[in-house]
C-alpha cells in the first residue's frame, strides 16, 4: 500500500525537513501523496508529524519542526504575532459540515449553522457531540455558538444532550453515530468514515463553516536552527499551480466529491 517503503533508511538530520500538520490533512491521505513528490523534487527527507492544531503549534513554538500546516486562523495569527512564524500562506480550503441522524430529530436540516445551533439549544433533546479538544474544529464550533448568541460555558453546562468527547474527529464521529447525535466535522474526515457512520450531512452551507488550511514557516530569527529555505520551498511547492490542481482533484475519484478547494486563484469570498 506504500509507494515508498524501500527508501526508508533515515537520512542525516540536516537533510530532513520537519512538518507538523493538522490531523485532517494527514488522515485524508493528502500528505501521503505530496510527500514523495516534494522529496523527489528537492532531494530532501520530509518528516511529517500529525497532531491537533494546538499541539502542532506547540511543536512550532518549541522549535521541534520547521513548518506547520493547520487550520485555525485566530491562533495562526497569534503565532505569527508572537514572532514564531514568518507569515500565513493559505493553500486550500473546504467547509465544515454539521452531520446527524437521517431522521433529523431536531429538525435543523437546511438551516444556517447558527440557526441550527440555536434550535439544538432550545429543544435541548437531540444530542450533540463536541470534539471538546481545543482543535481547529472545536474552535470553529465555539465560533458558531458565539455567532448564535450563546456564552460557551452556558452551552457546556446546558444539559446531558451536550456531550464533550475530548477526542479526535474520527472517534467523535463514531461516538455521534453510536449515540445518534449531531456533530460538527470537517468534510475530509467525514468522507473517510462515511461507510461506518449512520450519519448524514444536515447543514453544509453558510460562510461560518469555511475551513482554511494554511502553511506557516518558522521564523529563523527566533529559531535559528529552522530550515527556512527548505520551508519556503515547501510553501512554494504547495501553492504552485500543478500542486494546487492536484489538491483540487485529490479524493474525487475515491469519494466522489471534492475534498479540498485550491486556494490560489479561487479564494473564498
Amino acid at each position: 500500500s506504500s509507494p515508498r517503503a524501500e527508501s526508508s533508511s533515515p537520512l542525516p538530520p540536516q537533510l530532513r525537513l520537519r512538518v507538523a500538520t493538522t490531523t485532517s490533512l494527514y488522515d485524508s491521505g493528502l500528505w501521503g501523496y505530496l510527500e514523495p513528490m516534494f522529496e523527489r523534487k528537492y532531494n530532501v527527507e520530509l518528516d511529517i508529524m500529525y497532531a491537533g492544531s494546538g499541539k502542532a503549534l506547540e511543536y512550532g513554538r518549541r522549535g521541534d519542526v520547521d513548518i506547520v500546516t493547520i487550520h485555525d486562523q485566530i491562533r495562526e495569527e497569534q503565532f505569527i504575532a508572537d514572532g514564531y512564524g514568518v507569515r500565513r500562506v493559505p493553500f486550500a480550503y473546504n467547509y465544515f459540515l454539521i452531520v446527524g441522524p437521517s431522521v433529523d430529530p431536531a429538525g435543523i436540516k437546511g438551516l444556517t449553522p447558527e440557526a441550527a445551533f440555536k434550535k439544538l439549544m432550545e429543544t435541548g433533546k437531540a444530542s450533540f457531540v463536541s470534539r471538546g479538544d481545543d482543535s481547529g474544529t472545536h474552535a470553529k464550533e465555539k465560533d458558531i455558538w458565539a455567532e448564535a448568541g450563546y456564552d460557551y460555558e452556558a452551552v457546556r453546562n446546558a444539559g446531558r444532550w451536550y456531550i464533550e468527547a475530548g477526542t479526535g474527529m474520527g472517534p467523535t464521529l463514531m461516538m455521534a453515530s453510536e449515540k445518534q447525535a449531531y456533530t460538527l466535522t470537517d468534510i475530509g474526515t467525514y468522507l473517510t468514515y462515511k461507510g461506518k457512520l449512520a450519519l448524514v450531512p444536515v447543514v453544509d452551507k453558510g460562510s461560518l463553516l469555511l475551513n482554511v488550511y494554511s502553511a506557516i514557516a518558522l521564523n529563523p530569527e527566533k529559531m535559528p536552527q529552522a530550515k527556512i529555505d527548505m520551508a519556503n520551498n515547501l510553501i512554494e511547492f504547495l501553492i504552485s499551480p500543478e500542486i494546487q490542481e492536484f489538491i483540487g482533484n485529490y479524493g474525487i475519484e475515491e469519494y466522489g466529491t471534492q475534498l479540498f478547494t485550491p486556494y490560489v486563484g479561487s479564494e473564498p469570498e
Partner: protein
Amino acid sequence: MTEIWHGLTKAIGLIISLDPEVTEIAGRSLMISLTSTLLTSLICLPLGSLIHFKQFPGKRLVISLIQTFFGIPTVAIGLFVFILFSRAGPLGGLNLLFTPAVMVLGQMILITPLLLGLTIAALSGVDKVIPDTARSLGASGFQMTIIVLREARFAVMATVIMGFGRAISEVGIALIVGGNIRGFTRVITTAISLETAKGDLELSLALGIILIFIALIVNILLNRLQPR
C-alpha cells in the same frame, strides 16, 4: 525543563486546592481501575493457581500464550471491545458503549494475561514442599491454593499492584470504549491525552504526577493488607 517544574507545582496546587474537576476525574480513574483490578484478581489468582498446580497436556503452550498476551496493545483490546458493544455489534443491545462499565471490562481483558502470568510466576517460586505439607494436613485443592498464595504473598501482592498500575495507566481502551466524555467517562489518562493534544504539556504532566500519587497511596494501602 521549566515545564517539568511548572507541572510539579501545578500538580501540587491542584492536589492542595482539591480542584473539583481534577478530583472528580481522579476519583473516577481510581474507581474504575480498582474495580477492574479487584474483579480480575478474584478470577485470575485462583485460575492462575489452578494452571500452576494442574498437570495437563499443552500446559507450556497455555503459559506461553498467556505471557504473549502481555504484549497486546491497548488499542487492539479497545477496538475489540468497541466492536463488541457498538450498535451493530453482538452486544450492542446492552447499550454499554461509552460507559464506565465497559471501561472496566476492557481493563479486565487487558490485565487478565498479566495477572495470570504473574500469579503463575509467583507460585513457581514457592518450595514444592509447601503445597505437599498443606495437602498432607488435609487441605482441599482450594485451601492449598490459599496457603501457597499466602506464602508467595510478596510476589502476589506485587502482581496485584502491577495489575492496578497497568489498568490505571492505560489510555487506549479508556479512550476508545469510554470516549473521554467529560463528567462521565473521562479519566486521568484520557484527560492527559486530551491536554497533550491541546498542547498544554504542563497540565498533562501535572495530571501524570497526580496519577502517580494515587498509585502510591493505593500501593501503600494494598501493602498494608499483606500479612506479615
